[in-house]
């Protein structure tokens, strides 16, 4: 009986020692990587790398992608014939649906003053396909570009779009600077 007890006591002692050691290892490891740990990060795509492959619109885990088109107004030329708005070869440069490049009609065109027009993205309609981005980049100033919208993004541990992005545009950025913007806003922050 005494022997049994001794045996149990010994076992408990070994276990205590092992537990302390394990806790120390976890703590040490936590400290090691914790020392380099950073503030929270979120996914963002670098518009300068993006090649508008359209995967952003189809590979997000959300049925309606978290990626949307945004507009750097201060880069925009306010063109009458907009490479992002008008389908190439559109005869009449007006707002008729058959002349629009955007498949969901998410771009609003409003007259500002002769000869300038303002283009605005209706985010609720945009599906992030980047067709307009491609058009604007090819024929205009490149003021339309894609961004992960953080009011929608779930911040997946592994972004499903990042795994298929052909240009390596996706990266994690600090959550207090969650956008990679073009124009003044991009340089300012």
């Amino acid at each position, binding site marked *: 009986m005494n022997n049994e007890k001794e045996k149990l006591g010994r076992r408990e002692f070994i276990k205590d020692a092992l537990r302390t050691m394990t806790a120390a290892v976890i703590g040490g490891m936590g400290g090691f990587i914790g020392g380099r*740990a950073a503030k929270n990060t*979120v996914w963002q795509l670098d518009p300068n790398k993006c090649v508008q492959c359209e995967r952003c619109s189809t590979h997000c885990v959300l049925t309606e992608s978290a990626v949307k088109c945004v507009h750097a107004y201060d*880069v925009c030329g306010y063109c009458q014939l907009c490479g992002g708005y008008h389908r190439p070869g559109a005869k009449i440069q007006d707002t008729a649906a058959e002349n629009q490049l955007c498949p969901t009609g998410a771009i609003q065109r409003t007259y500002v003053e002769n000869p300038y027009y303002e283009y605005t993205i209706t985010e609720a309609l945009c599906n992030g396909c980047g067709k307009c981005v491609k058009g604007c980049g090819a024929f205009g100033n490149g003021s339309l570009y894609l961004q992960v919208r*953080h009011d929608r993004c779930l911040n997946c*541990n592994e972004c499903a779009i990042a795994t298929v992005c052909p240009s390596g545009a996706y990266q994690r950025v600090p*959550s207090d600077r969650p956008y990679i913007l073009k124009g003044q806003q991009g340089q300012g922050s």
Partner: protein
Amino acid sequence: MSRAVVRPKSWVMFILLAICLINSAALAQDPARFPKPEFESGYQQPPTQTPPPRSTGREWMDVFVLAVALGLTSYFALKKRSRRAIWAMAVFSVIYFGFIREGCVCAVGSLQNVSAALFLSDYVIPLTVLAFFVIPLIFTLFFGRTFCAAVCPLGAVQDLVMVKPVPVAGWLQEVLGLFRYVYLGFAVLFAATGSAFLICRYDPFVSIFRMGNDFGMMLYSIGFVALSIFVARPYCRFLCPYGVLLGWMSQLSKKHLTITPDSCHVCRLCETSCPMGAIDKPTPEKLPVTREQGIRRLGVLLIFVPVMIAIGGGTFSRLDVFLSKMHPTVSLAEKIDLENRTGTAGTTVETLTFRSSGTPAETLFAEAGIIRKRFRIGGWLLGGFLGLILGVKLIGLSIFRTSTEYEPNRAACFSCGRCFSYCPNEHQRLENIRHY
């Protein structure tokens, strides 16, 4: 421009050249084809809207909720011994960590972030993710796997849908359970080489929490949930890589849930109560092998273990070319190489993008070579680890710990509390409480 200047002084030439260079660099950066309009009507350019992400405060709030939930569940499992309270906690976790927080980041997945942070010098892990990894381990080190009982959203979802669990034979459970180690090994390998987050990619429950995904994943998720109705916690028992770590912690745990509130009378009533097959029976009086036989067998196995480690390591390190295909850089390099050899170009969006980026193929190949080398080392480690696990499991088969009670197996028990009500002592205890 400089051609127009006839025999200029060299410094003029230099300045002109510099201006040209600066100009062209600026143009390449910002190809403003159309000048910025000068508005006369007082039109103001609106800024680009930048809705902020979930605040860091809320992430810390989640860490806090995690700690509190762990504390409560441990209390319910060890002290209060209430299956109903544990069940309620599970409902809470599915709602909060599952449906409200929509899955990410969970402790199971955080194991990849930690691996990446340990092995990749340029990977930074957010502190909250580190907390999600460490806190459940520490709790398990003291109270057993109460995290699995009702805090882990993946475990909780399986627990809640477990309606008609069929018993799985002990040996089958052991064998299937080995997949967890394989999964763990691969998850760490791919995370530590920066290739992929396997656990996230094949998480069977996250599409349920987010109520949407592509068709294939949705089918997979629904299949898993359906399976969980008849097989108790299939993901936990046969796949979960984090569960391996938790099992190790639990074996060392200071305290642990017990089936009986006081001492076991060996009435056998709880014998088949655990749908997870996590109850250890008392060892028979007569051991199946004599002491001498056991020691001899152990000796053979102890020699065998290093051999298995070597075989495992050797095998997996030879799979480097195959395994490294998971890394995007390596897979791109292979595509480029194939195109070069077949004399084609731009057969995929990836290669087209790479070719238009102007990076020389040699740089890419060199990078891919470095990554492959990492896979060779990683393969040694992974194979060695799997060999070691197999060896230890075999040794475990020939070591007999004597026990005179029905006890939860510390590594396997999820602390769910289903077995409580089978113990007559428990009914006595509840009776006593009522009499007070």
